[in-house]
């Protein structure tokens, strides 16, 4: 299934089902939002429509966007030769739409773009309004753009980015320059070796090929080491789970969405609705997050995770004092086979290694040619320019 709800066969932009379009059913891939239709559109959707784009439909997503590629969707996921096939990426790759808006919560759209050899940009945190995103981890999730090339991604991003009064964390700048006028020549690039060495041979080859392309275009490339990846992954897992636990609590069967038919009192409504309405990964994340916030655990879990986030963000800033770009694998593998969803919590955690630095620090990341590039915050244009230059080689 590519669309959970199709809106317009002639539409040119798909949006993930965790981004709201007024009056169109929004499930975020979960049964618990059964027959929920929002009263308003996401700011990004509204800006696109005002600029003449047409939304084609609501692309299938994993439940609340928590998984690898969409495999936890209540509506199922397509596979090809046993491999998971992300809905938005396949819509863009097949040319059915020009671009897709996806919420990058834990790297799913980045992995999907790498698998389909298309482009995805997770812009700098706070540059695209999160108003109208069915939220999980507000401190890190960000709407990004999936497209066939950097030009299209930049075009769409320039429409949706810019300050929004309705999002209190939104950066104050009204518009950003995504004019692709930066060059590869003279750029200093570093490869984080821990984010390449354990990946599949196919992925390693993509990184090596890309490195050569950059050198050919006049960049210098060095290898560096990033020691605290384990801490970064744990910190992000705690923050993401805790915020998700809190944000998903509102789905309780009282106001909208799915309500259990089996209840005698309010506690039954809460427990049975949520037990029947959510899948394994959402529940595991909620339990993990609830623990991290509980009395006696907050200081050693959540509070510590926030401190680790600050330290990691500082370390990344330091890298960007010496380098313009970080080059890494976008995922451990180009393809992911279907698997038993009981393993999803651990599997997503392991895979977050490749995507966590941008999620945690809020810096922009672009996936292109099957690899990931990161730059300092607000240097989105540099990333898109490089993606554009290397695409043409």
């Amino acid at each position, binding site marked *: 299934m590519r669309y959970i709800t199709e809106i317009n066969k002639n539409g040119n932009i798909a949006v993930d089902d965790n981004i709201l379009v007024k009056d169109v059913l929004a499930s975020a891939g979960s049964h618990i939002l059964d027959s929920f239709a929002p009263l*308003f559109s996401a700011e990004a959707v509204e800006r696109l429509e005002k600029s003449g784009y047409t939304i084609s439909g609501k692309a299938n997503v994993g439940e609340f966007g928590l998984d690898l590629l969409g495999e936890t969707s209540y509506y199922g996921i397509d596979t090809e030769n046993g491999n998971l096939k992300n809905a938005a990426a396949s819509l863009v790759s097949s040319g059915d739409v020009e671009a897709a808006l996806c919420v990058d919560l834990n790297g799913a759209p980045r992995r999907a773009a790498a698998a389909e050899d298309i482009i995805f940009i997770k812009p700098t945190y706070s540059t695209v309004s999160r108003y109208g995103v069915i939220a999980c981890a507000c401190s890190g999730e960000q709407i990004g753009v999936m497209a066939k090339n950097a030009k299209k991604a930049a075009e769409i991003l320039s429409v949706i980015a810019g300050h929004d009064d309705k999002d209190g964390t939104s950066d104050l700048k009204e518009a950003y320059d995504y004019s692709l006028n930066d060059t590869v020549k003279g750029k200093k690039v570093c490869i984080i070796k821990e984010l390449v060495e354990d990946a599949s041979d196919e992925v390693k080859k993509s990184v090596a090929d890309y490195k050569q392309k950059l050198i050919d275009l006049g960049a210098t490339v060095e290898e560096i080491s990033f020691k605290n990846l384990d801490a970064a992954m744990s910190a992000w897992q705690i923050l993401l789970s805790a915020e998700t636990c809190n944000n998903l609590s509102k789905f309780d069967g009282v106001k909208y969405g799915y309500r259990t038919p089996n209840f005698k009192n309010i506690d039954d409504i809460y427990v049975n609705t949520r037990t029947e309405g959510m899948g394994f990964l959402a529940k595991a994340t909620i339990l993990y997050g609830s623990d991290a916030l509980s*009395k006696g655990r907050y200081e050693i879990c959540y509070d510590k995770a926030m401190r680790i986030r600050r330290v990691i963000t500082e370390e990344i800033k330091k890298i960007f004092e010496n380098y313009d770009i970080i080059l890494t694998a976008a995922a451990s593998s180009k393809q992911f086979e279907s698997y038993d969803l009981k393993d999803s919590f651990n599997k997503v955690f392991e895979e977050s290694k490749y995507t966590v630095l941008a999620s945690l620090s809020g810096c922009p990341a672009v996936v292109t040619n099957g690899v990931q590039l990161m730059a300092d915050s607000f240097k989105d244009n540099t990333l898109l320019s490089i993606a554009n230059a290397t695409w043409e080689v």
Partner: protein
Amino acid sequence: MGYELVIGLETHVELSTESKLFCSCGGHSSANEPNDCVCPACSGMPGMLPVVNRHAIELAVKAGLMLNCKINQYTTFDKKSYYYPDLPAAYQTTQWFHPICVEGLVDVEVAGETRQIGIKQIHVEEDAGKLVHTNDSSLVDYNRTSVPLIEIVTKPDFRSSAEVISYLKALKSKLQFAGISECEEGAMRCDINISVRPEGSEVLGVRTEIKNMSSLTSIEEAINKEAIRHIDAIERRTEILVQETRRWDDVKKRTFPMRNKETAADYRYFPDPNVMPVVIDDEWLAEIKADMPATVSEQIEKYMSLGLSEKEANAAAAEANLSAILDGVIAKGIEAKTAAGWLLTDGLGILKKNNIQPKDLVLDTDKFAWIINAANKGEITRNAGKTVLTAVILENVDPESYCKENNLTAQNDIELVKSVVAKAIENNPKAIEDYKAGKEKAILAVFGAAMRELRGTASPDLINKLLKEMIS
């Protein structure tokens, strides 16, 4: 052995903002029907983000200034999670880690003695909605959801229920006075922390908390009853005291423990990543300070410097409404002492007779000033003035036309007054005789008869003068 009560209070007060704490919905007081003042943000719809209401921040800062608090210029909002149908987002946004005001101090006065009560903190938070229970179901009304509140937390500094009541009364008038809260009936909700210890002891006794109290009478009763329960438990071992949360039963006049389930929640507080820390820079703080009305004590000082007695100054300043009316007529050029006399003697007298609370007095200061001026110029007598004032207060009449229509304009026609006085003398021969025989007071009957006839339109001085001339 004597016992000492140790009491701390947490008081919730609704802020007088135009809109809710994180959305632009109007306050619930403007609602006619359930769920009238509700939007996707305050009803827990996905996709909505909070935007802080700056006015609520300003009012909370004002409350802090009124209570001599230190203002935290860096203040943050946090999420408090629990499930209840009146809480649509399943979390309440409050201030757990960096409350907006801390370390305040406020005077309480009981029987002429003043003691200081420490304020631990003031924090801003959202209210919850309301549940309406019917026979077979419960309905939710989100009009009140996300209406901004402040919670004022004192240190355990109260030593009697009288101090608590005095504090709450003073708090209410302060908050109303500064336009921070309307403190509507029942809208001030208190949680009372109470323990008892032998006099002179430094060690605190077992503490219980009585939740969700609003009427002053109940608060006083509940504290006194709970203190007796504690003392009985200590002295007569009637029960073993445990630290717990209790409720007040207003019918049985006793406290009872809440079900454990209601109190055992772990609220899982954490900083709200969607609300940026609020930074109250020096400039903004100065603006808020400049916008503060004079405090009650400043107001008293001002009135005394304008020539009011201490008693008059206190009476006028204690009630924001009276104070505003007084300031209004003074601003229209009426001398302060005269104005205070009219307002506090005649005005309050009229209110008392008609069972009106001073806070509910509606009095147009233009009309009030006209009456005082007319009396000063002798156009009407003081008595007539009082009659007009009554009509203005009760029916909001126009004083000038009212005087004309009711013949209250002062009698400056000496011949007419003379003839009335002569007739009064003629009709009271006995009184005149007594007066002439040396009973000075006897003349009052004659004076009264003349006054009645003239319906208070002639000045008492004039009548007296004519009366004495004509008898001798």
